[in-house]
């Protein structure tokens, strides 16, 4: 950890970590420094230059100047004020006076700073350039006329999201009058010069972005230039009611606001117009931002169906459900199990629960040690068994942010090659290994990072058995002195001239060959690459993904993870497979398979409770109920109801069965009995961030120490690696479940995703034979994957993909053209 230092901003003493930027220190201490282009967690852009301050008598930009011990910062003086005013005047040159209809509707930083700095007249002018509004993708709408080219969208896309889908392009504007250089303040001139030359364009050179459509660029836009296509001219921001909530699509559990208003003049029922976030502290994915209208508009209380549901619950032998439920609902189901002995079946949480149990047997604690906030501070990140692009957007953002912000390095072990991950940083090494070799990947991590003295002897021997010294012939260029006798043509004199001539010689060197790296598809020179990657690295982290939970050798993998954590100084995080898999895994005692009469909650069953509106009894969707969710950062987070719901909820059934509470949220303090949960009332749970970016949401689960057994490792078996035609259970990037699918702005279709080349060879429609059953898929070409493995999405529960794949995420299949 870096040391704390003391410095003064405007005479106020501030304590800050060394190496922190002045601007961030000021913000954390509630001191206002104007800044437009800077984004917390991203690199300084230096486009707006308005954050100018005086530090120890020198003019510096507070967004890119690091604090020093004893530094004295003055935020404003006459000169700086003039500079800032000139900058704001320049921003206002030719800015359309259409604030009345602009979608930013007053939440505009240009407007705010113009007023803050008191620009009441204009001194500069330049002919305007015609710039046409355009749609960049199915969700993005860009109006360059309103754009002030602060480049926040470009920065967030590169440093946070990793798509790097935007860049600045030529504006075609007229050059600034030369006299301006001498007459106007110099920072304002420099900023204007740049502004007059650029607009934002998609970085692939076409008019359309090829990105993950996360919409984070919309969130960070300080003006109304970037808006979602669906929201253009729909509503003023001030008409919308902001409901703080937690996103229910994946296990990131991002903090979001549902913004609601009446649907129209004729229809007064509430409707969600958009989702916004605290973009300085959390980045959303496309599903979170655009997949919000999955509510279940129940007609009313259907008493008849309700009575049947209560009866069904009473006689049910098993309940099938998925992890898109709150902790409270999970606790209700667990209570049912305790009372009636009903089996609880949830395939994704079951695998994760087994993995966690195996992990805690070896590690002596219930939960993994770190969280994503912490690993974002590391500078070397490894990902094993996680399809970063698809499984969890925030895991990918963390992986990317480490590369961009911490000058980090990364190792990515995954059987499906992803060109995007390789492009995230210069020191990212991708291992495209055969499915089934995840153990080898973890052994390689052990081999590369473990402190040998902390490892058991047999493991050391096992690891050493993969190393062999081989002699390799390398070609090396050396400069050789060559002496020649030159005869001068005129004088006839002979002279000896010495010249340096390059020569290639062959040399034999002894290198250490690591068979593990080669087995995993690493390049021959991996040892050297790795040495480069390790330079100046201090903090290491490991992301564990779903492939490891759904693995024939999951228990051995869990033990390996525990050993890595204890022997390597690597911080470990796991990505729970679905939204609340961690909560369900901690709260419920799950069973492997369903039998007898089965009630399905958002899943198949003899009697279906459904928040999708297609079951025997309607249930509230996640945006219609309050409760808590447990996310991958091991926090219990509150979410609120954004829309009204008129039907019955699970607690009503519990009341009918005489084990219910008055309200669903009365179950929240009851969670206390479960592993790591606290006795906290729902209404007391906070949901926000402080100015310094501290996450003040819900509470953190307690990581309880348990009895640790001695770690028994098994050697990996190379023969379990899959060959041939392989299907991988993995969702497209903005799809997570039936609810994201229901949302009208999520366009990713259900089908068989294959790399462009593979899709071409497969044709339009195929039949996939899983052995137990066959399914027909449309083939969808996806340029975000490479190689032969095809992906089968599991977001539609009616397709029952989990049963097809069983305990694995990869499966040998036979694909036939139809």
């Amino acid at each position, binding site marked *: 950890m870096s040391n704390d230092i003391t410095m003064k901003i405007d005479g106020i003493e501030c304590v800050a970590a060394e190496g922190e930027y002045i601007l961030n220190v000021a913000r954390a201490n509630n001191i206002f420094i104007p800044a437009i282009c800077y984004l917390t967690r991203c690199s300084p852009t230096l486009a707006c230059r308005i954050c100018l301050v005086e530090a120890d008598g020198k003019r510096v930009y507070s967004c890119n100047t690091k604090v020093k011990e004893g530094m004295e910062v003055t935020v404003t003086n006459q000169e700086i004020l003039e500079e800032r005013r000139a900058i704001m005047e320049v921003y206002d040159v030719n800015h359309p006076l259409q604030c009345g209809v602009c979608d930013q509707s007053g939440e505009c930083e240009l407007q705010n700073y113009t007023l803050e700095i008191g620009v*009441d007249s*204009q001194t*500069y*002018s330049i002919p305007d350039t015609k710039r046409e*509004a355009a749609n960049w993708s199915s969700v993005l709408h860009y109006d360059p006329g309103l754009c002030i080219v602060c480049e926040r969208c470009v920065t967030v896309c590169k440093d946070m999201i990793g798509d790097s889908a935007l860049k600045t392009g030529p504006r075609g504007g007229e050059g600034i009058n030369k006299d301006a250089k001498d007459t106007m303040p110099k920072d304002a001139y420099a900023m204007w010069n740049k502004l007059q030359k650029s607009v934002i364009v998609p970085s692939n050179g076409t008019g359309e972005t090829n990105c993950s459509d996360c919409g984070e660029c919309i969130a960070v836009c300080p003006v109304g230039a970037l808006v979602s296509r669906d929201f253009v001219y*729909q509503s003023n921001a001030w008409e919308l009611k902001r409901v703080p909530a937690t996103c229910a699509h994946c296990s990131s559990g991002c903090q979001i606001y549902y913004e609601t208003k009446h649907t129209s003049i*004729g229809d007064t029922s509430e409707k969600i117009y958009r989702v916004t976030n605290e973009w300085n502290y959390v980045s959303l994915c496309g599903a979170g931002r655009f997949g919000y209208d999955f509510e279940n508009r129940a007609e009313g209380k259907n008493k008849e169906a309700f009575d049947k549901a209560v009866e069904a619950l009473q006689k049910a032998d098993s309940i099938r459900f998925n992890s898109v439920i709150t902790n409270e609902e999970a606790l209700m189901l667990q209570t049912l199990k305790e009372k009636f002995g009903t089996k609880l079946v949830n395939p994704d949480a079951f695998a994760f629960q087994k993995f966690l149990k195996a992990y805690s047997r070896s590690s002596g604690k219930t939960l993994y040690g770190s969280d994503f906030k912490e690993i974002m501070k590391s500078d070397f990140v490894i990902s094993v068994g996680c399809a970063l692009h698809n499984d969890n957007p925030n895991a990918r953002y963390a992986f990317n942010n480490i590369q961009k912000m911490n000058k980090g390095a990364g190792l990515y072990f995954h059987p499906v090659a992803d060109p995007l991950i390789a492009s995230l940083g210069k020191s990212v090494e991708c291992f495209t290994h055969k499915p089934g070799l995840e153990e080898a990947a973890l052994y390689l991590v052990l081999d590369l990072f473990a402190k040998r003295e902390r490892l058991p002897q047999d493991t050391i021997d096992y690891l050493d058995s993969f190393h062999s010294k081989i002699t390799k012939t390398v070609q090396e260029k050396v400069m050789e002195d060559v002496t020649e006798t030159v005869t001068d043509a005129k004088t006839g004199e002979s002279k000896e001239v010495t010249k340096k001539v390059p020569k290639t010689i062959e040399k034999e060197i002894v290198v250490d060959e690591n068979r593990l790296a080669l087995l995993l598809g690493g390049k021959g020179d991996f040892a050297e690459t790795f040495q480069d990657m390790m330079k100046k690295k201090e903090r290491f982290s490991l992301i564990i993904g779903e492939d490891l939970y759904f693995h024939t050798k999951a228990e051995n993998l869990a033990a390996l993870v525990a050993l890595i954590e204890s022997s390597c100084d690597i911080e470990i995080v796991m990505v729970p497979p679905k939204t609340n898999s961690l909560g369900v895994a901690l709260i419920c005692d799950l069973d492997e398979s369903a039998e007898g009469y089965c009630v399905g909650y958002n899943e198949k069953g003899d009697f279906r409770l459904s928040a999708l509106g297609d079951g025997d009894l309607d249930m509230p969707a996640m945006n219609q109920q309050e409760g808590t969710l447990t996310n991958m950062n091991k926090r219990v987070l509150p979410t609120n109801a954004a829309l009204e719901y008129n039907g019955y909820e699970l607690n009503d059934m519990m009341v009918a069965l005489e084990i219910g509470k008055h309200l669903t949220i009365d179950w929240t303090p009851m969670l206390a009995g479960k592993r790591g949960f606290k006795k906290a009332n729902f209404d007391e749970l906070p949901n926000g961030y402080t100015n310094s970016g501290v996450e003040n949401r819900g509470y953190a689960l307690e990581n309880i120490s348990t009895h640790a057994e001695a770690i028994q490792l098994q050697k990996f078996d190379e023969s379990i690696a899959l060959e041939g035609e392989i299907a991988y259970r993995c969702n497209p990037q903005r799809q997570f479940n039936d609810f994201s699918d229901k949302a009208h702005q999520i366009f990713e279709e259900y089908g068989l995703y294959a790399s462009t080349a593979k899709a071409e060879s497969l044709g339009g429609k195929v039949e996939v034979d899983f052995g137990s059953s066959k399914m027909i898929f449309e083939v969808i070409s996806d340029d975000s994957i490479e190689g032969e493995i095809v992906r089968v999405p599991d977001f539609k529960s009616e397709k029952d993909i989990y049963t097809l794949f069983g305990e694995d995420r990869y499966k040998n299949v036979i694909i036939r053209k139809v």
Partner: protein
Amino acid sequence: MSLEEFKNRNVGQQTYKMVQSDPTPKTGKEQFEQVVRRAFKGELFVGLYVTLREMINALFRGEMHTIKYPFEKLPISPRYRAIHDMLRLLESGHYRCIGCGLCEKICISNCIKMDTRYDENQRKEVSEYTINFGRCIFCGYCAEVCPELAIVHGARYETASEQRASFSLFEDMLTPIDALKLQQEYDGFGAISPNADQNIKKTPLAY
């Protein structure tokens, strides 16, 4: 007038001007004399003359002062706040409303609602607009806040109707397109002051 005079609350110390009048009679004789003096001064006939003159003017010279409401109406002040009018641009005939929603926001009785959308010409279009006149208190804030002088108060002060809906929709309040020539510019609440030009600084233009 400065505020000083309003702030002076020493009532009784001001220099009041007394009305000049005859002294009040005190004895019975004086009272009797006053009655006789006033009764026989001839003013009675002056009054009779005035009445007769006005009657003749009204009946025979066409100078009738009675307004035959509801067939006739008195002109009202531009500052009077009656049922709203929606004005059109004189040049294009398009309605002035840009859908900014300020009237909806400022309305203190929450009676204005509007729906907007992105239209084919990339403009913000008001797809529906309504004022609930059952709630409207005619405070005039909407007209004052309107940046385009699109919503103004008109002269329709009769708020009785068979149905409230008769004048609550956008089209009902909008100037009929064939009556565009007759559209009056609004001088009331929120209109630009006559000296507006002197109050603004001009922005330099490069062309």
